[in-house]
């Protein structure tokens, strides 16, 4: 699944970052690397963009970009 499919408040681990060029590098630079834990914190009032928590800070990105980030939900305990 991709990041945009998470529900508000859900946690997951990044498995893969797709896309290319500057956009992908930007996502990686901001700390969205495979293996990183993230939480979907909030969606903007109009449903897009979304706010996530990664490496202890809050980051916002558009849903179209979030679709390039593949995640695996923490296995249900």
């Amino acid at each position, binding site marked *: 699944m991709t990041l945009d499919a998470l529900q508000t408040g859900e946690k997951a681990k990044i498995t893969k970052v797709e896309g290319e060029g500057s956009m992908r*590098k*930007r996502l990686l630079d901001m*700390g969205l690397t495979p293996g990183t834990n993230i939480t979907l914190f909030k969606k*903007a*009032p*109009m449903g897009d963009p979304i706010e996530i928590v990664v490496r*202890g800070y809050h980051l916002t990105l558009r849903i179209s970009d979030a679709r390039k980030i593949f995640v695996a939900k923490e296995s249900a305990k």
Partner: protein
Amino acid sequence: MNIALIGNQNCGKTTLFNRLTGSRQKVGNFPGVTVDVASGPLRGKKGFTIVDLPGVYSLSPYSNEEKVTRDYLFKSRPDCVINILDATNLNRNLYLTMQVLETQTPTIVALNMMDDVKANGMVIDIEKLSEYLGVVVVPISAAKNQGIEELIEHCVKVCLAKEKNTFKDRCEGPIHTAIHSISHLVETNAAKAGLPAKFSAIRIIENDAEIIEELRLAPNQVEIINHFVEDLEKALSTDRESAVVDMRYGNIEVICADVIKKYGDNKSQRRTDKIDKILTHKVFALPIFIGIMGLIFYITFGIVGKYATDGMSILMDMAGEGLKSLLVSLQVSDWLVGLVVDGIFAGISSVLSFLPTIIVLFLLLSIVEDTGYMARVAFIMDKLLRKIGLSGRSIVPMLIGFGCSVPAYMSTRTISSERDRKLTLLMVPFMSCNAKVPVYAIITMTFFQKYQALVMLFMYVLGIVVGILYALILQKTKFKGSSAPFVMELPPYRLPSGKTVIMYMWDKAKGFIVKAFTVILIASVAVWFLTNVSFTFSMVEDTGDSILAMISKWISPIFAPLGFGDWRLTTSLIAGLSAKEAVVSTLAILFNVTQAELPAALGGLMSPLQALSFLIFVSLYMPCLAAFATLRKEVKSTGYAVLAMALQTFIAYIVALVIYTFGLLVTL
């Protein structure tokens, strides 16, 4: 000695810069970009200059800010770097540090927000951090002015010693092998390009096109490198960019695990989450934003606009009268009195009349920006703005455009993408500004008494619609390509620092006066000359004999297809370039009536349809010269500003023509 100040956005970099330099700052121009770089002398030390580089998260060559920062670091080679970090968020802030250290420039790390760290109960082992990074780490609080003296002392020491940092990254395995092998291979190339070998190797693996080009690699070198990279990608089962980013973050994780003794409770973040529950709430977010903007508008253009601007103009009028009687008593000739009072002095007062607005508006805006709310505005409004190819950041300048284009242009500074910023600059003047209201009022009063409010509203809507269409067309042509990546930090809310707010406001006011002054002054003198002098270079009694009138008579047929070919209307349009209100006053002068009698005079001249066409043209054509001067300053190009103005006037012509022709066909 040059010291570069580098850090993430929102880490208190500007506040530290102000602490380090005092108030003697200069804003420098960097060729090709509109990103400003401020510099100033290090307080209390001679011969040291601090350069405040744009806030960045990485040194990739993608955005303009990153380009400016990395070019300064890679090419200008500062004697020392102060890397400022937000200590409450070491994890992400250290990513830039890793890249700075790779360049082997002498570095000092300023660990900012230590007051917050203490308040949160967070514990950082600073000595150990310094050991890991191989550089001096100075704990500071820029906002509370703590640790600054110590930072300055260390800075001078490091600068003079020219000691390279002794950073040893603990990279292991395949990435280490690749860096090691490639740095050996490109050692000579790197030396020729003046770059450290290991740094070059890392940048090669990262696929940094600029550095690769600078190294001038031979074809066989490229081939060998590709082999190394392929091996690396296979061994780590990832791609080359990720491999390098992973290496850096891997390092950071090791460091953080060891130096952060206790995370504590991030109070500012918790407070932020609480505030955001309301400010970015699904339902309340938009009304709150509109409320805040409305309040800013009311204060700037309502209260201040009314009293301060009126007060200023009364003051200037009095000064003008005083000057006039002084000159007359000195028996200066009439034309010189006219030139000095109505030309030069009028120009000065028109510059000054913008000042109260600019000062108050930027005082309020910088408070909003400094608290971190502007990032939320972008978050809330992004979806809407994206439809016209912009991001949420562009909403504020456009709203300010309804007040005045001058500060609206200036407020585009907060848009970090050059493309988005230029597109916003082009859209701003289509938002109908305050100065056009008197023109709307007089025309609607004369021709559309029953529908006055409706026609006024139509003018505003028309401006917005034309602006949006313009943006859409530009996006498909000149500004092709997607808008800048919208990946933005939502920083914790912080109380704005008084000093930063004041400096920001002062910077805006000073910038406007200095840059706009010459243009406006020359323009005012030119307008005075054109309206008071005839082609035989004698003073005219009747404006109808002036050069301007002659020119207007000559070009007015151009406007005949729009339904307003009368030369007096053309003259008023030209006079309107000094300020839009002047359209009305010029018409009154030319018809030789008072402003109260103007409707009667105009009523006999045009049909309602022709008046509407005139109104449309007034609302859409190029903004006043003060706006032109500001645009020229913001894009740092006269040609670009002239082209933008010409294009806008052309659009106004076409729209008025279309609506007028359509109107004629319907009423036939």
